């Protein structure tokens, strides 16, 4: 394993440790989804998936 991989692993571990409290806070403070919220999210995400598949075919 080279130096860059070791340093990248250390960087990612620090990033996870720094993001953990923020994720915990967001989990606790996010408002619950209303009726139809997840459906309104699904539509654009499906469009993104379709678009990325199209790009994969193009290159």
């Amino acid at each position, binding site marked *: 394993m080279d130096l860059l991989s070791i*340093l990248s692993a250390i960087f990612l571990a620090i990033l996870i440790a720094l993001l953990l409290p923020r994720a915990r806070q967001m989990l606790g403070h996010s408002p619950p989804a209303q009726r139809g919220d997840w459906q309104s999210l699904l539509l654009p995400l499906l469009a993104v998936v379709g678009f990325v598949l199209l790009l994969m075919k193009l290159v």
Partner: protein
Amino acid sequence: MPTPIATVRTASSAVVSTNKLIRNTYLLLSMTLLFSALTATLSVALRMPPMTYLVSTVVALLLAWFVLPRTANSAAGLGVVFAFTGLMGFALGPMLNMYLALPHGPQLVATALGGTGVIFLGLSGYALTTRRDFSFMGGFLFVGMLVVLGASLLNIFLQIPAMSLATSAVVVLLMSGFILFDTSRMVHGGVDNYIVATVQLYMNIFNLFVSLLQILGITRDE
């Protein structure tokens, strides 16, 4: 009890300040993206070594975490944003050089760049026009990000190409979610500082571009 006229004035002033925030954010975002493209071009031309990615990213994130919160409400915040985005752009140099060296590499990079632009404009436009509140996704997105970082950490040791492809695919979906989340936060008052909003949207675009480049690069290799 507030009079109807006072209520209308308050509501109209809130709309004006939201529109101002959105306008300033997109203006600053476009300027920082151009600056970022400039530093990325410089990094490509100088043929920077692979370590540049890690060093520039670490310095940029230190700026975003420790300096930006103290300067976001002053003119110095603009300097910090340009330093941050300039460093992030510079970090891309070694990766871009690697992809540009592939057969049809410039086409690959251009496709990833164009694809990122289309996805960002489409999702941001969707969040702005529907005016839906996507703040319910906050916890889900941050936990997803932690899972992806954990998987990336694991894959440094395992070196599985399929896992790298899967991680990039999940990052594209997560960043799409973050674009909706951050754009709707501007509309619904979750963020009131255009410098902070710019940095959040910039990070979404940056991660989306890198992941899209990796997906297209991996599928092209096969």
